[in-house]
């Protein structure tokens, strides 16, 4: 019996590998497991190689996992194209299509001897019992149910529901294929059985991906306007909105480009509505000028950047965390805007609500800096208590204020009550030009300095926010990890590993990346002797950003590498260990950065 199972499958586009994964995932969710699924495709638009990884566990799943427990290859050519994304190890059970003619002891896996190998006549079983090759993926699901005890109930229930419209025959054919596979598994038992333990209790789970979660949160937070331009891997947010936003009295417009995408949202915000745009790196680059406009005009705005591999078009379908610098610094002039980064599907909800709240409270664009992995992976989540979440609306001017309305009145907080067209007496001129308190254009240096201060000072309260940080492990531990975004899930597993390994370590996961909340960081780093800031970018962007505002302990270094090369918990621990050794031998030197 095991508590955690990582299954990787690959085939060619028509093989239905991904829908098998989805069926397994939702079966597992309905059976009460925690589960996560990621997909990966070749560059072919259709019909190329495709793969998925499904991780199932009785404990919360923090990341897609490393080496596979179970590898399913519909053909070896396709499987091998995924290389490091589907790593087979000495502990892996390999299941593959026997039609490939590959002998079990001649698998094309260099330097690896899997634990067990099963060539299975997948296609033949499908044809024989379901009457169609297409049922291959149902056969696979049956095998997985038989060998690993996952989805034995859920898969068929799910299939029944999904195929309901197409008449009973199709379902029955699939059911036969499934049963046949179960029998096949029973007849060819694993040498070392490893069924997944039953989940401790059956809590009904939510199942979705980061993009849908983010879009749903926006609606919850009161967003009534979406405008944007499609781009992988953020398009699903617009697609969700296209289905849902109308229901909430809102509207959506697919714009001609990303500039218009944010422009229309800026207009809607000026008109007094909560508005949102979503994009990925290239789109963010195009939105830079408008971000600056929203900043100087002090207009609330939710802006999602689902990071993918860069620079330029880069690696559009792979994840990376290299847009942080852009998030913080893009647009000319002195501009600042809050940057929030979710770390998984579940926390995308609360964090998106937080982003809309911040936008409204501080009258500023806020960037939700997601990444491809979070946004497109599907995950089970425990139910979220929406009643515990507050929803903030922008400060409106009172009747007295509207008698002689100053849109940009200097206030103690730096936040001035904001009107919108339609509000009598609130008339003002919004502009990209520097302005005085009334909003009238000015080129006066003194006024400019005061307005700059106003725009920065109003964000000050964020610097003392501690709630947007999570610490794991012993708060007094001398060894530290920091990780953000999708890397946080790997780091949490690394922390557990390190602790199991006897290391006194802790982990900080920041959700608020900018402004740098010095209070939270300083208290975390107090007493830290050595540590790593782990992130998927070439430059180690968070590490550099922190240095701007904090004096990091000398032993804290960057552990960063380009995207599309996911970290493994083990290597993080190994790196941390090496760091400690360096610290000891190299007391007086400069900190080593890697």
């Amino acid at each position, binding site marked *: 019996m095991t508590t955690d199972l990582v299954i990787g499958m690959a085939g060619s586009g028509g093989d239905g590998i991904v829908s098998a994964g989805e069926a397994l995932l939702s079966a597992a969710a309905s059976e009460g497991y925690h589960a996560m699924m990621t997909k990966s495709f070749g560059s072919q638009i259709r019909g190329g190689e495709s793969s998925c990884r499904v991780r199932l566990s009785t404990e919360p799943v923090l990341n897609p996992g490393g080496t596979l427990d179970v590898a399913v290859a519909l053909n070896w050519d396709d499987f091998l194209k995924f290389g490091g994304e589907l790593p087979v190890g000495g502990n892996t059970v390999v299941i593959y299509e026997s039609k490939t003619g590959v002998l079990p002891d001649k698998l094309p896996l260099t330097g690896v001897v899997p634990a067990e190998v099963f060539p299975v006549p997948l296609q033949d079983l499908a044809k024989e019992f379901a009457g169609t090759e297409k049922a291959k993926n149902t056969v696979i699901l049956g095998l997985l149910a038989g060998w690993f005890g996952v989805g034995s109930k859920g898969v068929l229930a799910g299939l029944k529901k999904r195929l309901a419209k197409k008449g009973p025959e199709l379902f029955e054919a699939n059911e036969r294929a499934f049963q046949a596979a179960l029998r096949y598994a029973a007849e060819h038992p694993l040498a070392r059985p490893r069924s997944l333990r039953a989940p401790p209790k059956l809590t009904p789970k939510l199942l979705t991906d980061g993009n849908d979660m983010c879009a749903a949160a926006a609606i919850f937070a009161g967003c009534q306007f979406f405008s944007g331009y499609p781009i992988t891997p953020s398009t699903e947010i617009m697609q969700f909105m296209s289905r849902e936003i*109308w229901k909430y009295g809102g509207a959506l417009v697919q714009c001609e480009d990303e500039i*218009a995408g944010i422009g229309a949202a*800026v207009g809607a915000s*000026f008109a007094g*509505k909560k508005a949102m745009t979503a994009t990925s790196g290239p789109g963010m680059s195009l939105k830079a000028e408008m971000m600056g406009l929203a900043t100087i005009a002090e207009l609330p705005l939710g802006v999602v950047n689902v990071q993918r591999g860069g620079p330029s078009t880069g690696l559009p379908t792979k994840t990376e965390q290299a847009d942080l610098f852009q998030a913080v610094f893009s647009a000319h002039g002195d501009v600042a805007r809050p940057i929030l980064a979710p770390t998984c599907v579940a926390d995308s909800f609360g964090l998106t609500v937080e982003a809309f709240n911040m936008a409204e409270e501080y009258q500023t664009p806020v960037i939700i800096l997601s990444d491809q992995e979070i946004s497109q992976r599907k995950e089970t989540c425990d139910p979220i208590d929406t009643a515990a979440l507050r929803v903030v609306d922008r400060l409106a001017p009172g009747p007295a204020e509207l008698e002689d309305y100053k849109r940009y009145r200097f206030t103690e907080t730096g936040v001035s009550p904001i009107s919108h067209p339609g509000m009598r007496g609130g008339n003002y*001129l919004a502009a990209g030009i520097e302005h005085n308190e009334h909003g009238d254009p000015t080129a006066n240096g003194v006024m400019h300095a005061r307005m700059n201060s106003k725009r920065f000072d109003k964000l000050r309260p964020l610097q003392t926010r501690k709630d947007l940080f999570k610490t794991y492990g012993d708060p007094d531990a001398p060894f530290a990890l920091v990780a953000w975004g999708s890397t946080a899930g790997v780091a949490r597993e690394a922390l557990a590993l390190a602790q199991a390994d006897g290391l006194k370590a802790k982990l900080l996961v920041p959700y608020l990346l900018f402004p740098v909340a010095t209070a939270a960081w300083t208290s975390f780093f107090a007493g830290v002797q050595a540590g790593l800031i782990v992130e998927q970018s070439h430059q180690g962007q968070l590490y550099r950003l922190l240095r701007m505002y904090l004096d990091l302990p000398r032993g804290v270094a960057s552990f960063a590498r380009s995207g599309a090369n996911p970290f493994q918990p083990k290597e993080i621990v190994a790196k941390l260990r090496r760091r400690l050794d360096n610290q000891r031998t190299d007391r007086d030197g400069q900190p080593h950065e890697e």
Partner: protein
Amino acid sequence: MTLTAKDFKSDLKPIWCPGCGDFGVVQAMYRALAAIGRPPHEIAFVSGIGCSSRIPGYTTAYGFNSVHGRALPIAQGIKLARPQLLVLAAGGDGDGFSIGGGHVPHAIRRNMDITYVVMDNQIYGLTKGQLSPTSPRGLQTVTSVGGSLEQPINPLLYVLAYGAGFVAQGTPADMAGLTAVIEEAIRYPGFAFVNVQSPCVTYGQENQQIKAHREQMKTLASLGHDATNMAAALARAQHYGSELYTGVFYKNPQPPQTFEAQARERQTQLGPSARPRDRILDMFRQQ
């Protein structure tokens, strides 16, 4: 309370050069808005950047003097978010047809009820006299010292090709006519485009000044032009740059439904199927 032109004039002192055509445009705007009669706070007036784009600040409406070339995306956002507002957009020939040129066809095909006034002076005024997309071929400016090598654009023909429901031209040399086309544009229930030949006295060409306009001007009405005839409109529009026609080139006699009206329909139709906001997550629930 009836509104007069004065109610739309703000206290901000225009930065325009004495004699700039844009003074006439803003005057015509005041008068047209007075005739329409919507109070200033129900009007949103968006522009980009340029001399002409200063215009919203000189009115008492809610103004948005945004960034160069982006008046239309912002105006559409406003209109779609709050359809009951009267939404105006304005700017220069460079703002509208150079840097902002990519937005025009899409604004037009979306057909929101927005009036877009381009103050066309065939030059970049604010940046002090560079070539504009409507500058005639061969024009010598500081950025085309040996004369421009490009054919100018034809804003009238473009917007007709884009399918605009209302296309007109005016000049401050004829204030009554200008006021009338702006008012008619605003009243047109859909996207309306008005090209105003608004002379730049400082960097503009001699033959593009108010005095010259008075001589060149021909009202389309006087030519017996039928504004419901698209082919005639296309034919007349081809003369942009050589003839100064004023009045309405084209007005769709059967204005199609606006984007915002369709949006409203969709909202009404789908609204009843909305989950309560605080239960939106139910859609992700398994079993």
